[in-house]
């Protein structure tokens, strides 16, 4: 039990929180056909973090999040600019901008002296859930109610909890605007529902979520967490609120099953070492999506019926 508390509780909670945050936002990305904005934002989170690191000299969380958010805004603005000025289709504009920004990030990363700080490319790409150890948990279940022990929880947990509250608050506050703006942007503009502003806010939150989840699953697997649970949920129902609920359920399942399979699976199969928890979480979410594509009730969408 104390081993579970020390080694597994926090990673699992962090994984669950990250997955839920991403799934909530991901519902709207999928509906707005902006799944690849999640792709772009996750790729450019790295350069934003590198920039923040270079400017502040630390890898503290707040500068990192601000760096990633700034990087996302700059990227999206650049994509819009390139799209408009160059009259290119949005997918290509996205491809040009975010790959270039990512390349810049990798270059700067390799150039700068990162030997004193843990900021290597691979961990940025696929996270490090397994390192979130709660030493105080070794003392057993009593640690759960001991304020001193709780104070030693890895900070990623608290951070993610805060981001979850912010995301939930945003979705509640801007529910109508998101709903109308996604369904009919022209009408939304005409009726004053500010689709442009709300869309920008969504992108900023996606960037913040990407950074918050960074520690857990790295920047590329975050894309799986934005898309897969939400996409699977989309195939389960025709109503938006139930869709959000399904997506949260799938996200939690992916996080738990993925973490357990990565940590204990190999042991059960007779191997000594565990495999990447982040990768396994993404894989499980993909499997859930695959099953949904094959068997979910609303997977074929709606066809109009005779009048």
């Amino acid at each position, binding site marked *: 039990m104390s081993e579970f508390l020390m080694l597994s509780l926090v990673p699992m909670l962090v994984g669950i929180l990250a997955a839920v945050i991403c799934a909530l936002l991901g519902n709207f990305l999928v*509906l707005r056909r902006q799944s690849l904005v999640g792709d772009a934002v996750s790729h450019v989170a790295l350069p934003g973090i590198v920039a923040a690191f270079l400017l502040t000299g630390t890898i503290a969380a707040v500068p990192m999040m601000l760096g990633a958010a700034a990087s996302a805004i700059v990227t999206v603005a650049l994509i819009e600019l390139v799209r408009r000025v160059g009259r290119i289709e949005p997918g290509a504009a996205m491809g040009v901008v975010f790959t270039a920004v990512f390349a810049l990030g990798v270059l700067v990363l390799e150039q700068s002296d990162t030997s004193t700080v843990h900021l290597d490319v691979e961990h940025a790409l696929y996270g490090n859930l397994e390192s979130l150890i709660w030493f105080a948990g070794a003392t057993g279940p009593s640690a759960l109610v001991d304020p001193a022990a709780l104070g030693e929880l890895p900070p990623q947990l608290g951070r993610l909890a805060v981001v979850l509250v912010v995301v939930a608050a945003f979705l509640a*506050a801007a*529910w*109508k605007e998101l*709903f*109308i703006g*996604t*369904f*009919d942007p*022209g*009408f939304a*503009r*005409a*009726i*004053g*529902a500010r689709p442009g502003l709300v869309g920008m806010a969504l992108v900023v939150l996606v960037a913040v979520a990407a950074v918050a989840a960074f520690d857990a699953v790295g920047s590329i697997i975050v894309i799986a967490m934005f898309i897969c649970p939400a996409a699977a949920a*989309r195939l389960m*129902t*025709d*109503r*938006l609120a139930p*869709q959000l609920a399904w997506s949260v359920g799938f996200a939690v399942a992916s996080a738990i099953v993925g973490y357990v399979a990565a940590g204990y699976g190999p042991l059960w199969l007779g191997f000594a070492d565990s495999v990447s928890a982040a990768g396994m979480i993404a894989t499980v979410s993909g499997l859930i999506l695959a099953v949904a594509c094959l068997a979910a009730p609303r997977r074929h*969408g*709606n*066809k*109009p*019926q*005779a*009048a």
Partner: protein
Amino acid sequence: MATHLVPKPALVAVAGRAFGDAHPESPLAVAGLTVSYGDKPVLFSVDYAVPPGAMVAVVGPNGAGKSTFIKAALGIVPRVSGEITVYGRPLAEGLERIAYVPQRASVDWDFPATVLDVVVMGLYREIGLLRFAGRRHRERAMACLERVGMAAFAHRQIGQLSGGQQQRVFLARALAQNADLTIMDEPFAGVDAATERAIVEVLKALKAEGRTIVCVHHDLATVPLYFDHVLLLNVRKIADGPVAAAFTPAALQETYGGRLTTAQIDEAAAAPAASAS
């Protein structure tokens, strides 16, 4: 020789406000509206003031700027030039008095919403910031659905509706906005006859309440039947005014010239007008 051969000096007005003073009762007035994609204008220098309380048909060949006219007038697409006023006020202020019903095809109908959800959207301004739709709003929305005969479908997913049903839902959403001016883009395209009749009844009822209706319309034969005013567009404004005066063979010839036979034009212009109702 000459002074009467030379154009008179220009009058100038000082600011956009002056244009608003020129048409204070018009629900929507535009001057010099020009829209272009690239360097060929789709709409050039259109001047038009919607008469209050009228039911106006906007007609013209396909691709000649009818939808563009509406979208530019409402600020949905950018314009190269043009002053716009709503009841004499700037567009931004007056927009809340206008209900806009876009073309059906502009929306993804597989969206997770019910018929009632869509109608409630029309009540957005009333619901207010940071609030959710309450029972009162849902009842209002149901009342609008009843006016268009779609109350039974309130909880149906919108993707399951036929074209005519979708159009009625859009109309119900516009009714929910309780607007002084309702603008519809091709409301009768691809709908069944029963829906067409139902929509016309609702529009006539709105007009009877003193509201104004503007429709981009595709079917020349029904213009005199449903509408009392017409605006003929083919990149420029060709003619406008009461149907009897403006919907003439000559004007139609100039608007559609080459795209309709003379017989079709004469037939359209000669169609019997609706009896006073």
